[in-house]
């Protein structure tokens, strides 16, 4: 606690202030006659497109008291199971997981058993749902919060449905795989703001004390000067793949093997590396306007994805940042970000956020918290719900995912791609309808070959 820069008292003061502003916002919304100014787009979100202001999450060590909050898990694989456990750890006795949904029976069964064994949480069979429509049933089961953790292709549809049913959301990044999905998330995020819903998006670095402290040192205390460039990396090993199984249909195989299919995961630059791109957007305070990159597929076994990307991102003022990501075993690598400032360098290498000078001497080391960021993000969500603090990360994460998509499209095509183009793109990946059967999708799927794809409308 002593290392943590966030004291409870300090937080309560700021929370009260934020709450008051939020209440005023709500007041103007309810009345037609009062001057609302520019509240047109629905105020209250954490991320203001126009002002690009980024308030910090509350960052309490433990959740404040309040009525029991019930959560439903949509997507019971690795991340859904992890998020369920993180949520229970964050909320303790004041929260409950009461419904589960997945497209596969065995996934639901395994999480149901795991929660019973490890967390003493019993979920009745009638609150366990299986199928492509399981998300609707979980949302309708009387929960307060939904935890969206399916492969990201499905996220926009699930998020919109949850918001329209007035549920708070924890949705795991990346929140979409294509521009059509991004816009669906952005619109639903605006609805969530208007309806006062709270949304946390699994970009847990934004809930990690050391990252926040480093950001404040750079941003508030100007410790590195103006940022003139950055490098962001997720160069790691292979994740996993699933070989075919005679019992599985084509759709079942693809979904079980989803981190290898672009239409399901967005490719690894979107699915995994978005964490680092999100930190770049956060620290730099804006998104790049265009990207030119390359990538290839060297050792991936299944699916249609690349396994390495290298992207040069360019900002409106001409600044460049370099992003690289790789999923290949037995190579050197690292997962971190470096920001080069006019005065010093901020780096998170070795998971040790710090500021160093050009010679590598430490100038500042960012204090850490004892709370895991994966638990902290749930503490923040629950806190914001209970204290009614406007908090919605969807738009910020959508922007980060969009620049990852922009990098992917550039690498796939070999062409320069602009953010504006992406915002106006009708790209929508994957089949139109989802059935657990054989679609003939895999036979048609090809690994993209840069330079052979027509990116612009044909003349």
């Amino acid at each position, binding site marked *: 606690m002593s290392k943590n820069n966030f004291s409870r008292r300090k937080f309560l003061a700021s929370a009260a202030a934020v709450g008051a502003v939020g209440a005023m916002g709500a007041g103007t919304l309810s009345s037609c006659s009062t001057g609302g100014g520019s509240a*047109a787009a629905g105020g209250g979100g954490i991320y203001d497109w126009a002002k690009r202001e980024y308030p910090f999450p509350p960052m309490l060590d433990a959740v404040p008291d309040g009525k029991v909050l019930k959560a439903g898990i949509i997507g019971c694989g690795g991340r859904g199971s992890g998020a369920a456990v993180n949520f229970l750890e964050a909320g303790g006795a004041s929260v409950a997981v009461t419904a589960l949904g997945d497209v596969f029976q065995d996934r639901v069964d395994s999480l149901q058993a795991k929660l019973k064994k490890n967390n003493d949480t019993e979920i009745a069979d009638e609150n366990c749902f299986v199928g492509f429509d399981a998300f609707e049933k979980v949302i309708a089961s009387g929960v307060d919060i939904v935890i969206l953790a399916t492969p990201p292709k499905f996220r926009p549809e699930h998020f919109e449905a949850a918001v329209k049913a007035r549920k708070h959301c924890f949705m795991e990044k990346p929140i979409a795989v294509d521009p059509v999905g991004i816009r669906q998330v952005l619109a639903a995020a605006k609805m969530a703001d208007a309806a006062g819903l709270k949304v946390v998006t699994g970009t847990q670095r934004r809930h990690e004390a050391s990252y926040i402290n480093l950001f404040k040192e750079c941003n508030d205390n100007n410790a590195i000067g103006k940022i003139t460039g950055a490098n962001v990396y997720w160069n790691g090993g292979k994740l996993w793949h699933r070989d075919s199984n005679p019992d599985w249909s084509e759709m079942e195989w693809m979904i079980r093997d989803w981190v290898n299919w672009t239409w399901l995961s967005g490719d690894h630059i979107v699915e995994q590396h978005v964490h680092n791109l999100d930190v770049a957007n956060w620290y730099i305070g804006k998104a790049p306007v265009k990207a030119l990159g390359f990538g290839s597929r060297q050792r991936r076994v299944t699916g249609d994805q690349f396994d390495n990307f290298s992207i040069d991102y360019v900002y409106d003022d001409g600044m460049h940042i370099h992003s690289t990501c790789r999923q290949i075993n037995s190579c050197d690598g690292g997962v971190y970000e470096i920001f080069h400032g006019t005065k010093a360098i901020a780096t998170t290498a070795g998971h040790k956020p710090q500021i160093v000078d050009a010679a590598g001497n430490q100038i500042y080391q960012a204090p850490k918290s004892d709370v895991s960021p994966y638990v902290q993000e749930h503490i923040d969500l629950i806190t914001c719900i209970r204290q009614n603090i406007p908090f919605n990360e969807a738009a910020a994460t959508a922007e980060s995912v969009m620049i990852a998509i922009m990098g992917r499209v550039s690498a796939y095509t070999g062409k320069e791609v602009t953010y504006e183009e992406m915002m106006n*793109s009708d790209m929508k990946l994957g089949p139109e309808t989802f059935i657990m059967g054989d679609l003939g999708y895999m036979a048609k799927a090809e690994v993209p070959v840069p330079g052979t794809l027509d990116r612009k409308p044909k003349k």
Partner: protein
Amino acid sequence: MLKRFGNYLRKKLLLVILIGFVIGITATVFSHKAIEATSTPESCEMCHVHPHVTESWKLSVHYDTRVGIHIGCVECHLPPKGQGFLKEKIKASSKDLYGYIFKDSADFNWEAKSTLEHAQHFVFKESCINCHQNLFPLTLTKDGQDAHLYYSQNEEELRCINCHLNVGHYDPNAMHAKNVDFGGSGDESKEKYTEAATVNSHDNYIETIPGTTIAFNMKAIPGGSFKLGSPEGEQMRKADEGPQKTVNVSSFFMAEIEVSWDEYLAFYSATAAEGRSTDTEGTRTEADVDAISGPTPPYGQPDQNWGLGTRPAITMSYRSVETYVKWLSQVTGKTYRLPTEAEWEYAARGGTETPFFFEGNPKDFGEQGFFGKLFGKGSDSVNSYVVYDKNSGLRTAEPEGIEANPFGLKNMLGNVAEYTADWYAEDAYATLQDGTTDPKGPASGEEHVIRGGSFKSEIGEVRSAARAHTESKAWMKTDPQMPKSIWWLSDCNFVSFRVVCEFDEKTGKN
């Protein structure tokens, strides 16, 4: 004396304050009441004499609201109180009062005034937003989500009425959706042509489009040389019209009129694409096909509800037009294309070197006010040849009533502007050599040249030498679709095109 009065006042300070207070309150209440009383729809109607204004308002969604409240005139046509309400109220009421006393409301072009261009001056975005604070209600449709998302990212440049123009005054013809039925009701009773025209010599001919009921006149334009651009002394000349260069133009054929809706819809129905196939990774699975795929359905009413028929087709993108000429060439077996800028001006001039192909200078026709109407000597000639802002009623005209130029071409100078094949550069003529044959303009550029003024143009813009260019971004600003249409322009209703046919071996050249 004064001192005693002063003392008296001091003693009765409370009374003085009280009286002042009462007077102040009374004044406030009464002025407030006066403002309220003069802000009712009934009080607006007293001076604002406007046919159908009340009826169309009562049919609109702002009168017949779901929650049962009526939204009155001032709630949209004045800004909210505290945001310039009084200032605009005084402006609007003085204008209405002036118009009521000194003008005849029957003379106003009410239709033009209700277009977006005019409406933005008397419908206040602040007032829309004052009530419509939540642009993302949970009930918003998918299309609404995309459109409001686009608005929220371009708030500075967009107004609510860009999309919601008719919410205050009902227009039965207004459309705010993808217009899938557009141009669908062709004349089925007419006989269709089975063959295109056969052309064996450089003479006028009538082209017949096979498989359609459409025929149109093509004029043979004899080649020659002429001075491209305008001399420095020409009235209302702009710098990009010079320096004048003498260039040669080979013989060609040119359509008598701008491509009509009838002609364009023949193309549209033959090639219209239901889906879109425009994007990035989507094209991965798509093989190249030879068949020409044409426009997707437009959004709203491309003809602005002015009518179809022989009126020039408008709001098509440059890409649409390129596809049109490709299609026309394919179905007729000839070489149709857009004119180059030089061909266009050569044809427009018809051998003349004056500002117009008829007698007169721009300033002869410029002043068309009260005295201009009475004494303007040449206004008859301009009115018989050119549809421009002074005689158009701010809409396109049918070509039947217009006199042709010396080459037999109608509406070269007015009605609608016309796309050409050339890229635009302000200094295009400076780099051109005297004596060049069939110049094709700069090798590359951002925007294309458009020539000939339109129903919106002032007199100076309908001169033979006047130049202008496309504005790709601005003309697509308010398309609410994601992605924006590549076939239809959302913010440009004054540009069409005219086809030329090459005089080559397919048309009788030896």
